Structures are given as structure tokens and as C-alpha cells.
């Protein structure tokens, strides 16, 4: 069946999902970060009683509201796509996704939406303290709703706390806490929210710089910059720290993604980290295309140290992972494909035994799916079985995309931290705004956190290809057998709708920014 699968269906379905997720992610990080910045500003207002801080709070709250309103529910489209375009996957993971997403819907969304209303409409209608509490709960509610979808995503990257039920073809939760507190989930959440806080800080600094350049609302702009830069420095340090932890987890759990991020083909101890480099595809005389460096600047030992906290740690390259490395105990993809095929065949025989009422065979085969040794030896490689007879290169993610996305994200993240430190330092000295060129840098930096955030997701999602559920379900199995034309149609509808919404957001935001904190 997979031999006849139209790869353009898989590509269009992936493209459609990526488009929707990336569009959704334009709004989410700003909502997450700006809600906390507004809460800090609101707290200063309540503590000082200074009307200037009330104006500042109201202005940023308004921008938060516009972003929240346009962005809200764009994520629901992803759930539509699960049911339509990824129905096999949706069934396969149903129970795991069901619980976290239901909690998200019931707890966080209602908490968030209730307190958002009090936050916006509560001025002079509820007590100052209750109003402030609502603002803080909105901020925490926003982050709380992000937890669950990130936990679900982390489970796809590292499926833990579950057991596969061969009778229903579904994964069933065996330990909720293992899923919630897996290192992948905890770190994904922390890295995502801290980077979102950083994004919002850069947004506030950038918008404030525009006011300073025009010599408008100077006090408002300077005060906003101080709050944002303090928040930005803390968030920036936390983002780098969680990013480092993330690299360590990926290096151990998803070595192919890690190798692709660094375009590392030949594994080594004392592996250097490529700080900057450019790639060129080399196809001559090789069984699969290989990305060679045109140039690179390396930091010696840093890659090994990043993962194992010692330079002598062995970092497997793409070649080691594909062809195996006996010395390092890495089994080849050919071997994994064979073992995966055994697991698929066992599942097939189990199904047949059930259909013909062969109780003895059924019981014997069913036991295998409860046997830890068999699960480790065969079921762990289940997804590889679908690549029997297919090209090995299908199991390698897009190296160029992973490499560049990773390095762009890291470079921009470093720039944001340094820039936030400069903004904070000059603000504290009351010299922020004296240098026009720095204000221009702030404005030019404003859209960059979105690029960093999107490239971060590209690394996470493109780097784990072809897996939808890591090593268990590849995209070719997960996709619904629709016609590519049907997927293309909805892709273009989404693109048109999203473009209009995006332009509307930018226009409304720009209008409100131009009006300034005193505008209605």
C-alpha cells in the first residue's frame, strides 16, 4: 500500500499543517509574553497609584487584546486537520492527546477567557486588587494552556508513559505523570515560554523605540523599555539555559535530529560545534546526498561537551546512525527496519488470528505486546518497518533546513539577549534614546524574534522527520489517503484566509500604536 502512496499527498498534508501551525505561532508567543509584561506594569500601577503607569498598562493591554482576539482559536484548525488529514495518527495517539487537550480546553481556556474579560472591562468596576489578580491569572492561564499542547508535542518526540494496545491500534496512557514530567515535555515548555517572554520584550522595546525616534510619549516609552528590558534579560538568560538543556536532551533522545542540526556525518569524540557555516549538497558517487561545508567556524569539543558535559563524549553522525557503528553500540537502519517489520508482521498475524477465532495463536501473540524484552527489541523500531524496500534516505531529515534553522535561531537568540542587556543598561543610566542608531536597531530587531521562534519550531519538527510519533509512526503511515488536490485546495484557502487575518492584525496594531497611549 505504501509503495503506491502519492508522496505529494504527504508533502501537501505536511505543508498544510506547517502553514497552520506557523500562522498560529505568530500570535501565541506574543500573547504568552505580553500578558506577563502587562501584569508587571499593572502591578507597578497598583503599588504606586501613578496614573502614568495606568496609561502604560492600558496601552500594552490593548495591543495584547488585539493579538489575543485575532489569534484565538486559530489553533483549533490544527485539530480539524488531525481528524481529516491525519486520521490514522489521530486514532493511534487518541488517548494520549485526548487527556492533555481536554484539560487545556476545560481548565486553562475557561480560566483564561474569564479573567481576560475582567482584565479588559474591570477598570473602575472591580477592586484594584481583584483587577490585578485577574491580570496575573490571565498571564498564568495563557501559559497554562500552552503546557498541554506542548506536553502532547513532547510525547510525539518521546513517547513515554503509554502502552500500545494491538487490539484497538491505540496508545493508552499508563502513567500520566511520566507524560507530563518527561524531560522532553518539561524542557519544551520552559524553552517555549521563556523564548516567548523574550519575543514580547523585544516587541515592547521595538515599539517604544518608534515613539522615542518620533520624540512622542517619551516617558511612556522609556518606562515601557525598562520593564521590557528587565524581563528580556531574565527571559533571555533562561532561554539560553533551557536551549542548552534542550540540545542535551535532543542529543541523547533524537541523535539523527542532532546530527542534522550540525550537519555532522561522521561521528566523533571531541566533536566541535559549528558556530557559523554554509553547506553545499554533494551527490557525486555517494549512496545518498551529503551536505558538505563550503566554510565553517568551529568551537573545539563544544558539541561533545554540550551533550555529555565532557569532551570525550561520542556524538554519532548521520552515517553512523544509518549504517550503524558496532564500536559505539549503534544498530543500523537496515537492522531497525528488519525488527520493525517483525513487529508489524506480528500485529498483522494477531489481527488475522482474532478474525479467524484462533484463540491459542492470538493469546501467544498478544503476550508479546506485554513483554518488555520483545517491546524493546522489536516494537521500539515499529515505524522503521514501513521503510522495508524503500530508500534509506527517506529516514534522514532535511539537513540543510535543520542546520540553518538551528543556527539562525541560536544567533538571533544571542542577539536578543545582548540587545536586551544594552537596552537595560542604558535605561538604568537614563541614556536609552540618546543614540538614534540604537533605536533603529530596536525597530529592525522587532520582527526577528518571530523568525527565531519559527526556526526553532522548524528544527524541532523538520529535524524529527519522517516521524510523526518518534520511531513508531512515520508520516507516510499517519496521513489519510485523500486526493492531493483536496489538500491543495484547503492549503490555498488557508493561505488566503491567514494572509488577510495577518494583514488585518498588522493594520489594527499599527493604527493603535500610532494613536499612542492616550488614543481611544
Amino acid at each position, binding site marked *: 500500500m505504501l509503495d503506491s502512496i502519492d508522496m505529494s499527498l504527504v508533502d501537501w498534508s505536511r505543508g498544510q499543517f506547517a502553514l497552520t501551525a506557523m500562522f498560529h505561532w505568530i500570535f501565541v508567543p506574543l500573547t504568552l509574553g505580553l500578558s506577563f509584561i502587562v501584569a508587571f506594569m499593572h502591578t507597578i500601577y497598583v503599588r504606586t497609584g501613578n496614573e502614568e503607569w495606568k496609561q502604560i498598562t492600558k496601552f500594552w493591554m490593548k495591543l495584547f487584546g488585539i493579538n489575543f482576539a485575532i489569534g484565538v482559536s486559530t489553533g483549533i484548525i490544527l485539530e480539524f486537520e488531525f481528524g481529516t488529514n491525519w486520521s490514522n495518527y489521530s486514532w493511534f495517539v487518541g488517548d494520549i492527546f485526548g487527556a492533555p487537550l481536554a484539560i487545556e480546553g476545560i481548565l486553562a481556556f475557561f480560566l483564561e477567557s474569564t479573567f481576560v474579560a475582567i482584565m479588559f472591562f474591570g477598570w473602575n468596576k472591580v477592586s484594584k486588587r481583584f483587577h490585578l489578580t485577574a491580570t496575573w491569572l490571565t498571564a498564568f492561564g495563557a501559559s497554562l494552556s500552552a503546557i498541554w499542547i506542548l506536553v502532547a508535542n513532547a510525547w510525539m518526540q518521546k513517547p513515554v508513559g503509554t502502552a500500545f494496545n494491538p487490539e484497538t491500534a491505540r496508545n493508552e496512557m499508563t502513567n500520566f505523570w511520566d507524560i507530563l514530567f518527561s524531560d522532553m515535555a518539561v524542557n519544551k515548555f520552559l524553552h517555549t515560554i521563556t523564548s516567548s517572554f523574550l519575543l514580547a520584550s523585544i516587541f515592547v522595546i521595538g515599539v517604544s523605540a518608534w515613539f522615542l525616534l518620533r520624540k512622542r510619549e517619551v516617558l511612556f516609552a522609556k518606562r515601557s523599555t525598562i520593564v521590557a528590558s528587565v524581563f528580556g534579560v531574565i527571559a533571555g538568560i533562561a532561554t539560553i539555559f533551557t536551549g542548552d538543556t534542550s540540545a542535551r536532551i535532543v542529543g541523547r533522545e533524537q541523535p539523527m535530529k542532532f546530527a542534522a542540526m550540525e550537519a555532522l556525518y561522521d561521528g566523533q569524540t571531541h566533536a566541535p560545534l559549528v558556530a557559523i557555516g554554509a553547506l553545499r549538497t554533494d551527490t557525486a558517487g555517494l549512496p545518498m546526498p551529503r551536505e558538505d561545508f563550503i566554510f565553517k567556524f568551529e568551537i573545539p569539543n563544544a558539541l561533545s561537551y554540550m551533550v555529555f558535559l565532557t569532551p570525550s563524549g561520542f556524538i554519532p553522525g548521520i552515517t553512523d546512525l544509518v549504517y550503524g557503528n558496532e564500536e559505539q553500540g549503534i544498530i543500523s537502519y537496515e537492522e531497525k527496519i528488519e525488527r520493525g517489520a517483525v513487529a508489524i508482521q506480528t500485529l498483522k498475524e494477531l489481527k488475522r488470528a482474532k478474525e479467524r477465532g484462533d484463540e491459542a495463536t492470538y493469546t501467544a501473540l498478544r503476550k508479546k505486546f506485554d513483554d518488555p524484552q520483545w517491546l524493546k527489541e522489536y516494537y521500539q523500531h515499529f515505524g522503521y518497518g514501513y521503510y522495508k524496500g524503500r530508500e534509506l534516505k527517506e529516514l534522514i531529515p532535511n539537513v540543510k533546513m535543520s542546520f540553518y534553522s538551528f543556527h539562525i535561531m541560536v544567533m538571533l537568540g544571542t542577539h536578543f539577549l545582548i540587545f536586551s542587556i544594552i537596552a537595560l543598561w542604558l535605561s538604568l543610566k537614563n541614556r536609552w534614546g540618546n543614540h538614534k542608531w540604537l533605536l533603529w536597531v530596536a525597530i529592525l530587531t522587532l520582527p526577528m524574534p518571530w523568525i527565531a521562534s519559527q526556526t526553532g519550531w522548524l528544527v524541532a519538527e523538520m529535524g524529527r522527520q519522517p516521524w510523526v510519533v518518534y520511531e513508531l509512526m512515520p508520516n507516510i503511515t499517519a496521513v489519510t489517503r485523500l486526493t492531493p488536490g*483536496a489538500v491543495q485546495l484547503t492549503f490555498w484557502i488557508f493561505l488566503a484566509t491567514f494572509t488577510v487575518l495577518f494583514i488585518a492584525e498588522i493594520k*489594527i496594531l499599527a493604527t493603535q500604536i500610532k494613536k499612542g497611549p492616550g488614543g481611544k
Partner: protein
Amino acid sequence: MFKNVFRFYYEGFRSMTWGRKLWGIILIKLFIMFAILRLFFFPDILQKEFNSDEERSNYVLEQLTNP
């Protein structure tokens, strides 16, 4: 109490001078998402095609075991 809550929301929305265009966009967006996309383009395939979870399981098992 319900009356107060209603008044709170009602007056809040009424006083949103900057929000009318925004509400228009939100309503159009929700209409496109739920009344057009969901209804005509994004059916839940397994829910639509099969009547029971057993049928759905069998279908997915078939997809998983006949690659």
C-alpha cells in the same frame, strides 16, 4: 448576580470603541472556520466513515499492517 455579570460584559463590550472592527474580524474568522472549513472541508474521517470504535480500530489496523 447573573444580572451583574451580564451588565459587566454588556457594558464592557459596548465601551470598546477600538474593538468593533476587531469583533467583525473575529466573527468572520469564526464563521469561515466553523461554518465553511469544518463543515465542508474538514470532516472527521473516522467518525464519518465508521459507526463504531471497533470498525475504526479495524480500519486503522488494516492501514498499519498492510504497508
